[in-house]
């Protein structure tokens, strides 16, 4: 794995909100095609970390380099970076005033400057891939949560991103809709795209992760392969956490 190209390199990152330290000395590297799952209790800085990876927020010190681009506030390359890095949010954040098809094509047309017909072809292809081609002309509010989240995944894919970040993609969903989203994510993992995923879905993590990361109180406590992570984690805190979420 280390032989492959490094896609994301986070080194010694600190992040402060006023006096509160959200990230402390975080270092992590993700290689091309690697699938990383980050877990940990709430408030441990997982979301902050991946939001720093595409510049939705900015770290206070240290460095984050994504696909050769340094993530810094005001950087001119930020726009290029965000076209490379897709993000799926907990609350979907679809554009409610646009149809599903328009949600998918607005990025390619306005940002990547692709012709409308080509963008629509691409959009329909990705809708097919997330198994909802028939919803193209509806508005987001007419779809279920699971369908909306799959549209959000397709919206990111339409930008032909090389890296996908998932920020608790199933946390806002009704239980019966979680699987349809996870299935799409598993299929996506098989395509070889680089994925960094914050989630508590340990079944999913076991199935797709190359690397598990456990965070607590703004620090990375443990990085391990899933096999070792789930059977024999090194830190006590990680053991306790897994015990709590795997018990039932």
């Amino acid at each position: 794995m280390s032989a492959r190209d490094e896609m994301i390199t986070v080194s010694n990152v600190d992040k402060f909100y006023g006096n509160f330290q959200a990230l402390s000395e975080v270092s992590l590297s993700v290689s091309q095609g690697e699938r990383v799952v980050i877990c940990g209790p709430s408030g441990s800085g997982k979301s902050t970390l991946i939001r720093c990876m595409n510049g939705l927020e900015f770290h206070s010190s240290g460095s984050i380099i994504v696909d050769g681009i340094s993530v810094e506030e005001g950087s001119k390359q930020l726009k290029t970076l965000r076209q490379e890095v897709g993000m799926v949010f907990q609350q979907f954040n679809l554009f409610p005033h646009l149809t599903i098809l328009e949600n998918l094509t607005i990025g390619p047309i306005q940002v990547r400057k692709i012709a409308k017909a080509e963008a629509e072809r691409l959009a329909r292809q990705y809708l097919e891939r997330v198994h909802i081609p028939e919803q193209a002309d509806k508005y987001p509010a007419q779809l279920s949560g699971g369908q909306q989240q799959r549209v959000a995944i397709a919206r990111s894919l339409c930008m032909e991103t090389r890296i996908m970040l998932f920020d608790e993609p199933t946390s806002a969903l009704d239980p019966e809709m979680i699987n349809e989203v996870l299935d799409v994510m598993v299929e996506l993992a098989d395509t070889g795209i680089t994925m960094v995923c914050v989630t508590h879905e340990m079944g999913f993590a076991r199935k797709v992760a190359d690397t598990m990361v456990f965070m607590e109180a703004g620090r990375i406590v443990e990085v391990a392969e899933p096999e070792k992570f789930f059977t024999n984690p090194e830190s006590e805190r990680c053991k306790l956490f897994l015990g709590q979420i795997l018990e039932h």
Partner: protein
Amino acid sequence: MGQSTASQRNKAVSLKSLVNSVPFSVALYLAVISSIIWSAYAGAQAMGYNWQWYRIPKYFYSLTDDGFQWGEISIGLVKTLQLSGTAFVFATILGLVIALLRLSGLIIGKATAIGFLEFVRNMPILVLLYLFYYVLGPVFGLDRYTASILCLAVFHAALISEIFRAGIESVARGQWEAASSIGMSTGQAYRYIVLPQSIKFMLPPLTGEVVHLVKSSAIVSVIAVAELTTIGRNIISDTYMSFEIWFTIAAVYMVITLILSVGVSVLEKKYAVQN
């Protein structure tokens, strides 16, 4: 005890449904309106006022041997619409600029916006008009019509900028994040994502503002711009028909603003369906 409260409630309900029944409501409404009209007439009668409603129509239009001609009130109405329309366009553009400056995150932008807002909002519009006509007018060579448009535009831009700001801020933060996560610039996010969504928040207060603008355009009569109110004053000084003319002018303003309100509520429905 329980029975008596129930029967009281029944009585109350039947009284309410009686008051709300169509014949009763119409009768009550007509009674109120006619008593208002009657008191105006009675007051005028007591003064020995000589009503001359028959002279009013020719101020709207006249058919003479020369053919059809618009009357003075109609010409004044067009002027009022031109004045308000032009002022509204400028006020909207300036208001949007002020709102964007305010939200730009630049300290200088925010300071400029707040300075403008407080300066304009805390000044009577009459004083602002004098400022434009008697101070800036001679300096920049503004005629009274231009000075009026600028005054109305600047005054309402301040109020409209607050409407825009509130509308923009009511769009969820996640929309900004989603827009920038697909690589949109701030400008693109405003244009394609945020502004289209904020329209439905802005339309109702913006309607109020247009109505307000049409009404406040009457203020320019103090510098004798030939709009509806000035025309009304001129006709009265010629004819002494103050009751008829002021009632007529008031009705004309009301018709314009009602048409505007109805038009915008149709627009609102359209946007509501779309979302």
